[in-house]
């Protein structure tokens, strides 16, 4: 039954992707991309990757859609010219498809436990996690402890991308509009920032849902060692809650609740917290990012270290995603 459902979902994915590429209306393409993300998240769930499904649903269907819409508001919704060199591109893509399809016949069959990918370190992770780390969720253990360097790098990539967006979008507009003063009356200016406050249904539903999203984000953050969850997912959920609030109540109120300076502090503080936990390992006489020495008992130390670095990850992801969102939204109103 699951196999049939899986095949159905995969086929839907291909159909959605074709729709995304064919439509000339970019708004439709972005909406379809959100559906595509939800479908692929369900697929991940069927494939036993609960953590990944949670991340994809929050990031792909939620935040990436909002960012694309923000960018569309600043550019244009219609794709004017479609394709160039269509037949040449199709020929290149078709030949590449054939080559890669041919290569798939050498792949191990779906779900084969004897596949090379399952022979290397993965069994060791599954076997040793209860002994060394003492937490049930092996994904969190690998993410936070065994491959802590990797995750540290990823956090800094997120951080750097956030800085890049802030740099790009805080530059002043070029051309005729440069420095044009805002002649509108203060009341009028405020009217542009009220979001959907005049629409009853989005406002009521939004207000009802936001606290629960925040609560769920906290649960995902601190329950990540036991069930699917962790800093990346929680950060995306926190950001989604505030973005929803901003859409319903307007930018100004959101920035009053969580000012930009706090967001910057979250971005920097999270990355520093992660690095600091790593350095604490050195200071206590072990290696960088070795949490065993953080507490008297090695397993308790690992547990503490993972909680701290997950907190750092969550802070950086929340701060970065929200800063990026505000940067796009502020550009929209400038």
């Amino acid at each position, binding site marked *: 039954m699951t196999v049939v459902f899986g095949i159905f979902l*995969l086929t839907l994915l*291909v159909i959605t992707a074709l729709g995304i590429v064919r439509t000339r209306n970019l708004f439709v393409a972005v909406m379809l991309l959100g559906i595509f993300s939800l479908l692929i998240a369900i697929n991940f769930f069927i494939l036993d990757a609960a953590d990944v499904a949670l991340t994809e649903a929050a990031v792909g269907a939620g935040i990436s859609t909002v960012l694309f819409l923000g*960018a569309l508001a600043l550019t244009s919704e219609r*794709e004017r010219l479609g394709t160039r060199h269509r037949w040449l591109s199709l020929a290149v893509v078709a030949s590449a498809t054939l080559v890669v399809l041919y290569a798939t016949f050498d792949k191990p069959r779906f779900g084969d436990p004897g596949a090379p990918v399952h022979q290397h370190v993965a069994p060791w992770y*599954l076997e040793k996690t209860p002994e060394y780390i003492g937490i049930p969720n092996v994904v969190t253990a690998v*993410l936070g402890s065994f491959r802590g360097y990797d995750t540290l790098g990823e956090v800094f990539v997120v951080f750097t991308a*956030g800085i890049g967006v802030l740099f790009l979008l805080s530059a002043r507009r070029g051309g005729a509009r440069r420095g044009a003063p805002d002649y509108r009356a203060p009341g009028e200016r405020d009217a542009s920032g009220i979001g959907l406050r005049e629409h009853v249904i989005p406002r009521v539903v939004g207000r009802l849902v936001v606290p629960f999203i925040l609560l769920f984000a906290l649960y995902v953050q601190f329950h990540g060692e036991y069930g699917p969850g962790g800093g990346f997912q929680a950060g995306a959920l926190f950001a989604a809650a505030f973005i929803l609030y901003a859409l319903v109540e307007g930018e100004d109120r959101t920035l009053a609740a969580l000012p930009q300076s706090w967001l910057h502090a979250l971005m920097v503080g999270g990355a520093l917290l992660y690095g600091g936990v790593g350095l604490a390992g050195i200071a206590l006489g072990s290696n960088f990012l070795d949490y065993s020495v953080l507490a008297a008992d090695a397993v308790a130390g690992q547990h503490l270290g993972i909680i701290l670095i997950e907190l750092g990850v969550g802070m950086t992801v929340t701060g970065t995603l929200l800063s*990026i969102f505000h940067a796009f939204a502020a550009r929209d109103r400038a």
Partner: protein
Amino acid sequence: MELLGLYHYWVFVVLLMIGFYAVVAKVNLIKKLIGLSLFQSAVFLLYITMSKVSGGTAPIVLPGMVDPVYSNPLPQVLILTAIVVGISTLALGLGIVVRIKEEYGTTEEHEIQEIDRR
């Protein structure tokens, strides 16, 4: 049934190439970024497909399970972080497109090239 075991990989290839087509053939910069997102999602699907073990369950070790089979946690970890990094780089790309639109007044690739040639 033997070939059905490859269906996931075929979907991966098709999605990858649909994304690739959007990147090379489409003129609009935002559409190119959408194509890049599709391409990226296809790679995620490949990794997660490879992590699946038949009859397995999510890699969360609970006491009291009799002879459990877990799917591979490693590809899941890699993709989990890749998704969040992906959205950050996507935001960077969108930021660049927005700045291009402000400076050139268009997001269509060859119009930008024409303005540059002048």
